[in-house]
């Protein structure tokens, strides 16, 4: 993570961020994957993933993340996430009805157990996470445009 001292917050915040961002992202992914076993799920996990990127952007300044993901790429990824979720729903058509949970349910209490629920959780978290990141990027990009004017 190239670190030019004049953008973003002070050095202390940067070092702490460097330590915690990975953990936040991991926690978000944990919440998504264990959505059907423990509290949390697609929405909460997706927002946590978005917050880890926003946390990175606040600490290291806009260029750190904005250079990697542009708003257009973010909105395209989001439409892919949405199409995935619609695909899972349409998969239910083969089993007879729109949102039917056709994959086998497996044994309760272990990770791969609730048919399409974990897949939907992953699709929703992809969509929610990247969508909120796109909102934040759009708000931030507007700031730079105003400065140049």
């Amino acid at each position, binding site marked *: 993570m190239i670190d030019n001292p004049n953008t973003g917050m002070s050095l202390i915040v940067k070092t702490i961020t460097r330590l915690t961002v990975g953990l936040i992202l991991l926690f978000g992914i944990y*919440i998504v994957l264990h*959505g*059907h*076993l*423990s*509290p*949390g*799920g*697609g*929405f*909460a996990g997706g*927002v*946590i993933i*978005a*917050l880890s990127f*926003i946390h990175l952007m*606040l600490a290291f300044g806009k260029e750190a993340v904005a250079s990697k993901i542009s*708003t257009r790429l973010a*909105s395209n990824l*989001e*439409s892919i996430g*949405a199409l995935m*979720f*619609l695909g899972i*729903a349409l998969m239910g058509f083969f089993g007879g009805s*729109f*949102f039917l*949970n056709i994959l086998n*349910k*497996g044994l*309760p*209490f272990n990770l791969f*157990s*609730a*048919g*399409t*629920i974990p897949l*939907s*959780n992953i699709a*929703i978290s992809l*969509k*929610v996470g990247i*969508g*909120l990141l*796109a*909102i*934040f990027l*759009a*708000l*931030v*990009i*507007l700031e730079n*445009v105003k400065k140049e004017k």
Partner: protein
Amino acid sequence: MELHILLLFMIFAAIVAIEVKDLLSSVVGVGAVGFALCLAFLVLKAPDLAITQLVVEILCLIILIRATIKKDLPLVIAGRWVFNTIATVGFIAVFLFFAYVALKELPSFGNPTMRVVKMYLQEGLGKTGATNLVTSVILDFRAYDTLGEATVLFASVIGIMAVLRGKGRKKIEEREDDR
């Protein structure tokens, strides 16, 4: 008992958030209401909601603070708004009176009539395989709601990008008529 304290705190924090002069401290007031709501969800045995509310609250605060930094504040308070206040306060009084009367007929706090939900509780694990029944309701019994829900967020993202884009209308000369 602790719910009463939480609710009184939320009402007090909401009044502070609305009446205080400075924008940033009213944003902090809303943050306080949101976090008290997150605690209330924990007390009401809704862990799913506590996580989601906490995280969504943080994101809302970041966006709100982004909107209120270095922005001006109206200093002069015009008196023209007297009629508006009377109308609002009158409407609220009527609304609260009828709400009080209607609330008496609802099942009392703490024992809801769970007619449809009994089936979810008994067969939720068997039919959907998910142990977290709230997730089974969201993603299997009422998955159609969640599809609408994901579309709401998608519409909001596309709407924000449409509103925040630079130039809304093309000037006449650069408009080419195809077909």
